[in-house]
């Protein structure tokens, strides 16, 4: 069967089971777009290529499949860059297809020519430049394979216009994948498994550190089994959230910079840390030299480059987490850590006094109220997609997610503007689920144009803007560390109700806690995408906070309201 390169692109996507592609056409990608007419793949027209990248990312995270984004040469390709880097930092499998100018024009500064493989080299797991139609099929096959295997990540394939236009006899099975330098899978040796088991059996104060790898390896069952059998509490990284049920008694919650006091105390006091698919990011460890100094550390990760990168460990098990845990579970005996768990629970008790959601309604609307009520109303079952900043941390703290892959956020790169497009992508990934995007007034405006995409697609995504009139997280740092000298953080926003209205969507505004529930319920019942402008406390901060370079126990705590302070003081003395 003789096909053009453009047709082969779609043939390959179809073969990979791709159902939806997020993209934006242009001069160099005209052949690909023309060929799209003949294929049953849904194309979502975005408003900016960054949106396409985040949508493909959100889709991949929500569905567990490989996301696909498509952009033209030059500016189309460069607009993807932030989204590619976001996917890279969080190890999300996305295949980016970019069009390139005619192969004869490469290197001549042609119209809309840019060296996209050069630009994206450090932010992709791998990338390709295809200049010959005969290379398209096997390159795309390799791209999908590399993206989803081992430690997943983004792969970019840049295809010249002539490669798209030329024809060739297409045989899908012509060339098998041959990557002699790529060995994505490994399994730890039995000897090391035994060492791990011995360390686990002798631990008195163990803590599991569950990362994104739990979700990506699909090791939720094994982690649960391990935690329950050994009675080990589970702390989660930001991206590890939803890998272990938040409602489980052994769940501690999020660790690190904005982790609750008991979580970070437990880590610092532990005698054994079991790092499951996480990478000891600086936001997780605080001062590395003073990080969990009493604990021996077992690190299970599929990427050998993560071993001893940030934190030196006592035992490294390089391999797929779910398979490795399966091996370990064959030998691990049931254990009890009653005293240890009791001491952590005791800490929980005193910390929750400061919890904002337990404060009496004093007429102020706090972001924590919004998230907590949303969690209650949706019974914790919504797919939650956050933006970056305070909104992200509050959501991580107050939306207690039980369902795997239903907490989606930009962790490593911390990309503002991620929320809305990733939420749209997540809706395509889990179309039957209720999707909520939680963002700030700043991040929402970065990719607000994608509201038009949601409207054109007729999909339903509920958007909660936690509007405090500031770039809140930066403001918070200016408050804590720059003497409240607010520089370029106060932000005036447009009328979000009118913005929604202009897109033919529903907009609402909430200013008191009493109205939160009605608004959320109305949003759920309204057809189409809904924007709720929650006017929250302007200068509220995310607590607790471990300042950079501090040890995990050195936290800035929420100032106590006078009435509670008295009780607390009494407690402390006692």
């Amino acid at each position: 069967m003789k096909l053009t390169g453009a047709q082969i692109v779609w043939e390959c996507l179809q073969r990979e089971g791709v159902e939806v592609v997020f993209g934006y056409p242009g001069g160099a990608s005209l052949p690909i777009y023309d060929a799209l007419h003949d294929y049953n793949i849904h194309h979502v027209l975005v408003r900016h290529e960054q949106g396409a990248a985040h949508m493909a990312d959100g889709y991949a995270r929500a569905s567990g499949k490989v996301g696909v984004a498509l952009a033209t040469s030059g500016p189309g390709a460069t607009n993807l860059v932030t989204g590619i880097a976001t996917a890279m930092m969080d190890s999300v499998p996305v295949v980016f297809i970019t069009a390139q100018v005619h192969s004869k024009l490469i290197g001549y500064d042609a119209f809309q020519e840019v060296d996209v493989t050069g630009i994206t080299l450090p932010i992709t797991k791998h990338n390709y430049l295809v200049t010959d139609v005969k290379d398209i099929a096997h390159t795309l096959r390799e791209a999908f394979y590399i993206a989803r295997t081992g430690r997943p990540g983004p792969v970019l394939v840049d295809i010249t216009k002539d490669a798209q236009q030329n024809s060739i006899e297409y045989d899908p099975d012509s060339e098998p994948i041959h990557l002699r330098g790529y060995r994505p899978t490994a399994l730890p040796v039995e000897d090391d498994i035994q060492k791990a088991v011995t360390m686990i059996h002798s631990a008195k104060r163990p803590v599991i550190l569950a990362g994104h790898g739990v979700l990506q390896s699909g090791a939720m069952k094994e982690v649960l089994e391990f935690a329950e059998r050994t009675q080990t509490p589970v702390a989660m990284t930001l991206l590890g959230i939803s890998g272990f049920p938040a409602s489980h008694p052994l769940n501690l919650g999020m660790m690190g910079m904005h982790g609750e006091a008991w979580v970070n105390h437990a880590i610092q006091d532990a005698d054994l840390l079991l790092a499951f698919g996480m990478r000891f990011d600086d936001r997780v460890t605080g001062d590395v030299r003073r990080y969990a100094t009493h604990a021996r550390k077992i690190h299970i990760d599929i990427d050998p480059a993560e071993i001893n990168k940030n934190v030196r460990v006592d035992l490294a098990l390089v391999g797929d987490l779910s398979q490795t845990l399966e091996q370990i579970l064959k030998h691990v005996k049931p254990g009890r850590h009653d005293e240890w768990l009791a001491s952590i629970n005791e800490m929980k008790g005193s910390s929750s006094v400061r919890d904002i959601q337990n404060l009496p309604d004093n007429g102020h609307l706090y972001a924590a109220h919004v998230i907590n009520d949303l969690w209650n109303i949706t019974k914790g079952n919504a797919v939650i997609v956050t933006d970056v900043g305070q909104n992200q941390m509050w959501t991580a703290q107050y939306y207690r997610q039980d369902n795997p892959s239903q907490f989606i956020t930009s962790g490593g790169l911390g990309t503002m503007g991620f929320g809305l497009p990733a939420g749209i992508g997540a809706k395509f990934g889990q179309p039957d689920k209720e999707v909520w995007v939680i963002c700030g007034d700043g991040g929402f405006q970065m990719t607000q144009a994608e509201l038009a995409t949601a409207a054109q697609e007729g999909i339903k995504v509920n958007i909660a803007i936690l509007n405090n009139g500031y770039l809140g997280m930066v403001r918070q740092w200016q408050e804590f560390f720059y003497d409240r000298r607010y520089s370029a953080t106060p932000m005036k926003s447009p009328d979000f109700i009118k913005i929604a209205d202009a897109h033919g969507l529903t907009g609402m505004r909430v200013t008191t806690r009493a109205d939160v529930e009605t608004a959320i319920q109305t949003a759920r019942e309204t057809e189409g995408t809904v924007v709720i402008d929650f006017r929250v406390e302007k200068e509220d901060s995310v607590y607790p906070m471990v300042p950079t370079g501090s040890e995990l126990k050195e936290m800035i705590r929420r100032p106590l309201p006078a009435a509670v302070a008295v009780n607390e003081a009494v407690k402390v003395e006692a």
Partner: protein
Amino acid sequence: MNHTIVALVDDVPGVLNRVASLFRRRSFNIESLAVGHTENPGVSRMTIVVDSDDTSILRLISYLYKLVNVIQVEDLTTKPCVTRDLALIKVKADTENRAQITQIVDVFRARIVDISNSSFIVEITGDEEKIEGFIEVLRPIGIIEMVRTGRVVLARGAAPLYASEKIIDTEKLATAAG
């Protein structure tokens, strides 16, 4: 200290860029780098000299393995090896000092490979120490221009480096933790 890393990589466009970019973005400084074909079609061999401590080198090697085009990486620093560098040196040579230069060339077992009215081009191979010594002797005479290949190494003995599969010594990674 200086480490000599040998990387076997796919012989495809852009692979040098991938490796060099990795060194740059992970903050490793390349002292010298030599690339060329190998006995295996489609495989290139890079010899990279990098100044770094032992722990960082293990980190570097595991980063290199993340590159899809990298087949195998070895640190040959402490292994018995034949080590060579090649230099071509254009040196001022007039009637007065020609004899002197020829003598030096003989002592260092270098070779004169080009002669003009006022210059020689001298070729020398050997380890860096020998070449450095040679250069120091020639310097007062007047070096016009010089080029060096950078270090290339081959481990002694019959066994080849190429193992046809990636080998990541995780135990080594773990014990390096200390």
